[in-house]
Structure formats: C-alpha cells, structure tokens
C-alpha cells in the first residue's frame, strides 16, 4: 500500500488530522491499534479552558474555542459543545496575586475572564461550599466549556472517511522505515505502507512510536484516574477546578458528575488498574467542595494516561533530524482542548509548508540544553 501521510493513533488528534488533511485532498491512512477513542481521548474530562498562564497556551486555547464553537456545523454532527465556564478556585492571598497577573494577561489577549468572590461562587455553582473548598474567591471565564470527546472524534473520523481517508482500527504500527534520515514508510500487521510523512499522535505511547524511528523523546506516561457519578438532575454548568488540590469536576449534559484529581498512588508506567486510594481521595475532596454530593453514588471509575512532557507543553512539528517525521504529542493532560489549533497548524505545514511561531516554540528542539519555561496551570 502507498499513501502520502500515515497517522499513528485514533484519538482526537489523529482523527482531526485525518479530517483536515483529507479535506485538502491529501492521501492519508490512519492506524489505530485498538478502536477509535481507546486512548486518552475516550477517558478524558474533555474540558476546554482558556485560563492558562502562558501566552502561547492562552492563544492556542482561545483559537481552539473559536473552532470548537463552529465544529458541529462544519462536521454536520452535534459534538456536544457547551460553554458553561470554568471556575478556578483561589485559596489564599498569594494565589490571588498570581490570579490577578494571569487574568491581566488573559484579558489582554481577549479572553473574557474575571475574579469573583465567595458569594458569586455560590451563584454560579450553587452546590459549592466556599468554606469547605478553603476558597477566598475564584476566577471565572464563561466562554470556557466542554465537548463530548466521543462525538467529536467520531464526527472527525466519519467526515475524514467521506473525504477519502482510510482509517484502519485494530491495526498496530510496529515499525517505521527510515532511509537516509527520511521517512519512507511504516509496517502495520506485517504489511508495508509507503509514505512521505508519518505523524506520531500515539498519545501516551508516542515515545514507543518515536523509538521506532530512532528518536528519543522525553515524554512519560502517567496513570490518571477519573470517576463519574450516577445521573442527577442538572444543577450546575461550570467546570470547577483548583490548581492547589488538583481537582476538576463538572456535570455532563446527561446528568453524571465527572471528575478527577492526582491520586496518592500516582505512578509512571502503563498501569491500567484503578486504585482505591484515588477513589477515597477523590470522594473526600469532591464532597468537601460540594457536600450535597456525599450521598451520590459513584457509577464508574477508570484509568487513562497523561502523556507528560518535561514542561507540560505539547511537542509538535517536523523532527529536525528525520525528515517526514511529525511530532504531535506531549499534551500533558490538555490535548483535547488544544487539538483544533494544533492539528490545524500541523496540517497547514504538511499541505502548504506553512510556518507558524508555534512550530518553533513547541518544537522538540526546545529541550536541548535550554531553559524550560513550564506551564503551571495544570490540574488532574
């Protein structure tokens, strides 16, 4: 088989790339070793937030929100996009100062965000107990929100197939063929597929995929757990998060409350088994934030992986040494919300050779001996 671009991984990023490239008339074949959404995408909170600490993330997220808000129309399917806002707890004076700085930066870049007090917290999410949260206030951005990760990814995949993309599920790429520092093809299930580009959008497995081309990337897979409760009447729209406690939770359109927090037994590695300590810690913290949830049952509890880069920022763009090898990973727990912009930048680069500042600032080369500026506004 022969194609222009091979995409490895059927998550939000792989499927979005398949859609964008095929729309431009480029020949693509996507390989997913399990099923669409089986990686982090099908296990994530799918929250979409513009309240970041770096200029780069704020712009990427803001531009992504613009795309998300038109995506149902573009993909001709409802992707469940909803703007209920993000409420970010502020716990003390020091955090308040930092929040003021962030808000200033965010507002200067056109994000509608403000600092609110304890009473306003209760107005926006009536079930919250600001004292239990140890909160003195919060920041709130009403245009932050959420989309359904399954609906979004499958919509991309279906439209991509209509555009002529080939999507192979239950097929694993086991080898990448590189000759004279250039990508020549891949091997999937014993079959060789010739191509000019390989995109590594294999999420937490991206370091294994990069190794296939002889490239070492500094990413680590980190087990992350999440829960959903039984369905309840809708009582709030916002996503509630705290950088100090690491908790995030929101109520889905269907009524379930979904959330996560860093677990006490969080470890690196491909560990699928959930931990009891997470369940306990999550339940205790969640009910400290929202005491009325004490007697709501947990329905499901699962694990997924963050693909963590050293500075918690994504790694994108063509490899400096292997031509045709495209990085698209290292999302560190926020790859759903950034995917519209990131995949647009990558597909414009492949189709038209279009450059972008982000291809430099987010290049794999940034880890070579330079200072790393870390994104600090991370939860989960």
């Amino acid at each position, binding site marked *: 088989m022969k194609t222009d671009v091979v995409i490895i991984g059927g998550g939000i990023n792989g499927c979005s790339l398949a859609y964008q490239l095929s729309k431009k008339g480029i020949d693509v074949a996507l390989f997913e070793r399990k099923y669409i959404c089986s990686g982090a995408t099908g296990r994530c909170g799918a929250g979409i937030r513009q309240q970041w600490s770096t200029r780069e993330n704020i712009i990427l997220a803001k531009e992504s929100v613009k795309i998300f808000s038109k995506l149902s129309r573009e993909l001709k399917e409802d992707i469940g996009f909803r703007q209920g806002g993000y409420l970010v707890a502020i716990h003390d004076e020091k955090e308040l100062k930092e929040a003021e700085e962030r808000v200033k930066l965010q507002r200067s870049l056109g994000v509608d965000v403000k600092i609110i007090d304890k009473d306003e917290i209760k107005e926006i999410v009536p079930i919250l107990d600001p004292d239990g949260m140890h909160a003195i206030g919060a920041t709130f951005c009403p245009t932050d929100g959420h989309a359904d990760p399954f609906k979004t990814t499958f919509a991309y995949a279906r439209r991509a197939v209509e555009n002529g993309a080939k999507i192979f599920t239950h097929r694993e790429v086991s080898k990448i063929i590189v000759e004279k520092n250039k990508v020549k093809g891949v091997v999937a299930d014993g079959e060789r597929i010739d191509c000019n580009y390989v995109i590594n959008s294999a999420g937490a497995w991206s370091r294994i995929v990069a190794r296939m081309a002889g490239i070492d990337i500094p990413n680590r897979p980190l087990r992350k757990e999440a829960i959903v409760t039984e369905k*309840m*009447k809708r009582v709030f729209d916002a996503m509630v998060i705290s950088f100090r406690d690491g908790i995030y939770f929101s109520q889905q359109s269907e009524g379930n409350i979904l959330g996560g927090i860093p677990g006490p037994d969080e470890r690196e590695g491909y560990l699928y088994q959930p931990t*009891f300590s997470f369940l306990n810690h999550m339940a205790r913290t969640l009910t400290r934030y929202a005491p009325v949830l004490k*007697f*709501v049952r947990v329905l499901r*509890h699962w694990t997924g992986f963050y693909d963590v880069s050293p500075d918690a920022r994504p790694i994108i763009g063509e490899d400096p040494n292997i031509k045709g090898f495209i990085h698209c990973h290292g999302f560190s727990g926020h790859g759903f919300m950034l995917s519209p912009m990131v995949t647009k930048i990558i597909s414009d680069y492949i189709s038209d050779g279009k450059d972008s500042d982000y291809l430099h600032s987010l290049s794999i080369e940034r880890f070579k001996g330079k200072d790393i500026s870390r994104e600090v506004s991370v939860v989960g």
Partner: protein
Amino acid sequence: MRIEEHPILSFERGRKVHFYFNGKKLYGYENESIAAALVANGITQLSKSLKYNRPRGFFCGIGKCASCRMRVNGVPNVRICIENVREGLEVETQEPLAELPSREFDDKGIDTLECDVLVIGGGPAGLCASLEAAKSDADVIVVDENFKLGGQLLKQTHKFFGSKHEMAGKRGIDIAKELEKEIIENNRIRVFLKSSVFGYYESDHGHLFGMAQRLDDMSEKVYKVKCKSAVIASGASENFLVFPNNDLPGVYGAGGVQTLVNVYGVLPGKKVLMVGSGNVGLIVSYQLLQAGMEVKAVVEALPKIGGYFVHAAKLRRFGVPIYVSHTVKEVYGEDKVEGATIVEIDKNWREIPGTEKRIDCDVVCLAVGLSPSVRVVSLTGADIRYIPEAGGYVAIHDDCMETTKRGIFVAGDLSGIEEASIAMLEGKLAGLYSAKRAGKDVNEDKADEYRKRLEELRAGPFGERGRIAKEKIRRLWKECH
C-alpha cells in the same frame, strides 16, 4: 393482587408493615421487596425513561435492569426490587433525572475486611463455592446484592432434573433453603447481604475489591475487601426483544415474573402471553397457571419447541396453544399492556402478512435467554470473549474454573448460561480450587468426581449448547497459555 391459596406453595410473608408511596399509606409484608408490595397494590408504573419520559415497569426483579429505580427515604435511584419493605419507609417516584439526595447521614468511614476466599454472588454457584472452600478450611466472605440468599433458585418451585448429588427431585426453593442453612451454620463463612461488589483495585499482594452495603436507614457503608482468591458467581441478566412498545409496564422478564409470583405470591396481572418456549418459558408458564393466571399463548420464533417435551405436554393439557414460527409484532396500551399482536414468520425470520393474531393479555413475559453478567469479572482484567453458545461475553477459564487472571475464578451462569445443577457443580470446583490458591490443602479427588458429574449432566441433547460453549472456552484457554 396477592395469592391467598396456592397448590404447592405457602408464602412466608412475615409481619404486616405500613409504608408510604408518594405520601399515600399502603401496607406490605416485611419479607417482600418494595417492588412486589407496590405491584400487589396495583401500582405497575415504577419509573420513567430517561430520554422520552415513557412509563416503565419492573423487568428483571433481581437488581440488574435499573427500570425500578425510586426515591426511598430521600435517597434517589434505589433499585426497589432488591430492597425489602420496612415500617414507615417513604417511597416516591422520581423524575428520570432524580433530584439530589435530601437526607444527611453520618460519615461511616471505610472498614477493611480480610478473608481467604471472597465469593461474589449468593446464587447456587456462589453458595456451593462458599461451602466447598470453607470445607477446605478457607475463611470465606460471601456477598449478595439482594436481601436474601439463593439467587435465581429462590423462585424455582419445580422439582429438579439431573443428578441426585445436586439434589434432583427437590424443588429449587428447598435447595436454596438447605444451602442457606448450611452456610449460616458454618462459622468459617461470613455473609453480607444487600451488599454490592463495585470495583477491583490495584494491590501489592492478593486481590482487593470494593463493596458497598446498604443499611436500614438507606445509607451505605463502604468496605475494602482483601482476599487471597475470589469466586465470581454474579449470574446472568435476562435478554430483551425489540418490538414496538416493548417498554410498556406489563412487558416483563419471565424470571422477574417468576420471582414476583413464586417468591412473593404477587400476581402482576390476569392474562399472560409468554414469548419463548425454552425450558424457562415452559416452566414459568406452567407455574403461572398453578398460581391462577391465564396463559393465553406461548410463541416461539423457531419452527420447534425449545424445551423439554414433558413441560410442553403439561401446558397442552391445560389447553395453552404453543405457536411455533411466531413472534410478537407489537404490544399496545396507553401506559400499561392492554394486548399484543403476534405474527407468523418464515424461514428467514420475515413476518408473513395476513397471519397476525391479536392476543388479549395484560402481561407479556419475555423468556428469550440470558446473558452472563460479566461486569465485575471484567474489572479484574480477566480475558473476556464473545461465545454465542455461552450466551454472550464470558471469562475464559480452565477446568478448575480459574480465569486468565490468577486467583480469580468464575462459576455458574456467569461462566456460560446452563442450569442450576451445573452452577452448583461449577461452584464446588471453583470453591475447591480457590481454597487451594489461598494456600489450603484440598482433596483434589473430589474435583474429578465433580468433573465427571458435569460431563454426565452435559451429555444429553439439552446439554449440547453448554458442551460446545465449554469446548470453545477450553480451546481459547489453551491459546492464551
């Protein structure tokens, strides 16, 4: 309506108690489930569907379908078919998306329980596994979601076929009583009723499960259960069929109706259409006749009757027509079943126009097979495969009933749909080998005996499906190793 006289059963209903339904005072009995007490009071619409707000009645009667959820003492989403009636209980219908709980309870903390063997499910398989493991000196905890032990045996009022070792000639309900008595008298076995095993977690050694016990005040107590090995015998849930109005109150699982009639002595209606002529369909039809209901017809999609000849003959003697090559076309009614249309089908399962018949009935029973309840076992990471002859997804296991996850055993309907005598024997095998995994000395000669009897039970023509299923499972097991 409650049955006052029954040819073979006397109902131990216990003390009469009062409870409230949507503020109205009703009475029931302390050994009844809330669902049974409501149906006895003529209340058949229990919940509303999530999306379209359609009326729903109960379906399975054993905690598996969630169509009976109500608010009890301020706690939403209670499955009232496995919750017993108590004096003063406040039961309310809820909107599809329930309001948050309105009650406050004390923080009960989390306790840790330890045992050699944890048995999940207190049906015939689980009870036999518990006894067998305890006989090999294992400390056992057995857990069931229901408020009584026995699983599906509780409602089987007919005499069993099969080997005398598995108490053939006795009624299922009496077998359940004997097993329960033995369990209670055995001080190596601790029983947790109204308790659901909800999760499987990472642990350094042995196995760690999460369990929630429902307390009388409707709060729940959470336990961590540490064990050296576990037998999962969570049974099966009844299959559903697709036809217009299949969700109207009055369309029930045959097992659910059997529970209502045989365990609680409550009649869900007067006139029944039975769908499916396997043994379950035939036996339940006969039992409904015994209980004083009218069985209007049995329909069977295949060209011949599925169950034993003797059961079909009994029905014919009562003049019940059995229509083969027929299916339900639709059920009609406003907010409960008021009748059904059946239709003949050809070899390719296509309806033959002009063959429709209207059946005047207020209950439609679906006896169209069961699917193993694999959720708990799949959490452990055991290899699960789809095997049609086993009834659906099952955990691959060896002839000691151990899954691909070391120390995790399966038995009974969960390991492939068969019948109660087989469930008991598989339970014994799983009990024996789970004790061995827990480090106990066991007498493996007994295992050969159990395997021989299993082979005998599966030897007949009705054992064929089970035989094929187990052969496939064995083959897959070998591939896995």
